[in-house]
């Protein structure tokens, strides 16, 4: 182990693979975004930031951005708020076996391929599908919709599937954190006569603040990056009402051949997700110093 070169040899394969498939593409993407590059017309020229200014005048892009924001807000309510309540309830249950069954069941959807879940829900959302049948059965026929076929409901139908799939995941992260809280703290609170709700707010929540913050960050950046759900369930339709930034990027690049324009969307997504990541490391660093 005296040879100075040795550690670098161990690093080399990893560095190559990261450079080629992670870092180089990011830089290339930045470069592409400043080109007017049309694959089908065969044109390619430098136009600076023009793609970006064009994007913010593009109505469909603004719809997509708005849908990403809906995605984030609704996901925060369910994948942080509701997941936290669920984690609190399951960890406070007397019947530990039942609580373990709940925990595992809620977690399973987050493991299954999105294609499976997406296609399953396209069946459920059909006009003659399961959801409308359920609404008929409970005499709420007035609430029936075309779900993924209507402009007003399409994006929210997709967002609902994401919640169904991911609540169990963030719940599990929170449960793992709750289980790390020292037992004595809860026992002391119990002796003081604190009920479940009180213990939840005064013991559980303050002790897992960091994990709550982490689920908050994962969920927010996930909302900017969302692709699979939308692509599989609605493909961005009807009439592009349920596009999000990534599906629009995909569409411009691989359907219309507008590489430069599409890369500009990629850069915007990158920027948003990096701001979130920076916030995260900033928050955790300042915590570490205290």
């Amino acid at each position: 182990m005296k040879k100075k070169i040795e550690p670098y040899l161990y690093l080399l394969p990893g560095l190559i693979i990261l450079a080629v498939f992670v870092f180089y593409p990011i830089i290339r993407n930045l470069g592409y975004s400043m080109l007017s590059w049309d694959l089908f017309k065969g044109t390619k020229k430098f136009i600076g930031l023009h793609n970006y200014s064009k994007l913010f005048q593009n109505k469909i892009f603004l719809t997509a951005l708005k849908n990403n924001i809906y995605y984030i807000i609704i996901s925060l309510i369910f994948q942080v708020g509701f997941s936290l309540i669920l984690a609190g309830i399951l960890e406070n249950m007397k019947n530990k076996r039942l609580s373990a069954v709940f925990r595992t069941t809620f977690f399973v959807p987050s493991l299954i391929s999105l294609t499976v879940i997406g296609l399953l829900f396209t069946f459920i959302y059909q006009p003659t599908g399961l959801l409308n049948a359920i609404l008929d059965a409970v005499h709420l026929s007035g609430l029936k919709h075309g779900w993924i076929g209507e402009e007003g409901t399409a994006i929210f139908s997709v967002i609902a599937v994401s919640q169904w799939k991911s609540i169990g995941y963030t719940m599990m992260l929170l449960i793992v954190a709750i289980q790390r809280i020292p037992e004595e703290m809860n026992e002391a609170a119990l002796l003081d006569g604190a009920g479940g709700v009180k213990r939840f707010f005064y013991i559980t929540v303050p002790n897992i603040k960091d994990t709550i913050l982490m689920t908050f960050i994962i969920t927010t950046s996930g909302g900017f990056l969302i692709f699979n759900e939308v692509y599989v369930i609605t493909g961005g339709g009807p009439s592009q009402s349920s596009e999000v930034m990534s599906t629009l990027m995909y569409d411009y690049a691989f359907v219309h051949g507008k590489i430069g324009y599409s890369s500009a969307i990629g850069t915007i997504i990158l920027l948003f997700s990096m701001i979130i990541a920076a916030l995260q490391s900033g928050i955790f660093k300042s915590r570490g110093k205290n």
Partner: protein
Amino acid sequence: MKYKTSVYSDEKNYNTYRSLSKIGRAFVLLIPIIFFIIIVYPFIWMFLASFKTTNEIFSNIWGLPGKWQFGNYIDAWKSGISKYFLNSVIVTVATCLLNLIISCMFAFALSAFEFKGKQIFYTIAISGLMFSPIVSLIPLYQEVQALHLYDSLLALILIYTAYQMPMSVMIIFSAFMSIDHAFMDAAKIDGCNSFKVLTAVFMPISKPIMLTSIVLTAFYAWNEFSFALTFIKTKIKMTIPIGLISFQGEMHTEWSVLLAGLVISAVPIIVFFIFAQKYFVAGLNAGGVKG
């Protein structure tokens, strides 16, 4: 009791509080029960519908299948699912192995040696966590074509490895750092070269964390969608997540067969989870990275 004196001024109020809390507890239990039904019912429906005829799915939306159509599964398996399945297995196993080897080497260099730029190399690897694959889709597409990897499973294996590596390096590095360096010195005295130290000392000691890394990588590789969608064109090379999409295109009138295909695709991952749950939860503990 503090409660009684500070919040509830008299005995009667306190008793009301106690009985309320009983009702409250029952009410609170309703939340997971209702959510349980919302999660489980679509799976049960999918399972039952996959044994019906397509007409029956509409005419008998709630009930059990009139006659259990096992043929749906045979049709699904024969009309493509078997190939997608095999491809997914190849990609998943290869990604797990390659990622494990490269990440262990990387983490080993950072934990067992003293050298210039150590901190920078660690930062480089970890910063990979920040970049989401979707952002790089277009340049990667060009790159994959330039490297003659387009429409090959190898493209997926290499790219999946690249995007799983930062997380694996992070958790394996922290395991390697906790190894007592006395072991290493002893091995050195015994005349082991560094490669032997890695394979005979570091890796065996860190088995649980390596299994965790394998399990997380396996779930990622098995389910990954956007790269597979972009880089694989030929049907016989498709993995399950995109194979199902093309399967849907062919089967759009044969709902029952498509549903059988969905069940076939979902079952292995659920079974795998039941066996690997321990390592998965350990992964949540270590990294909390979205799977």
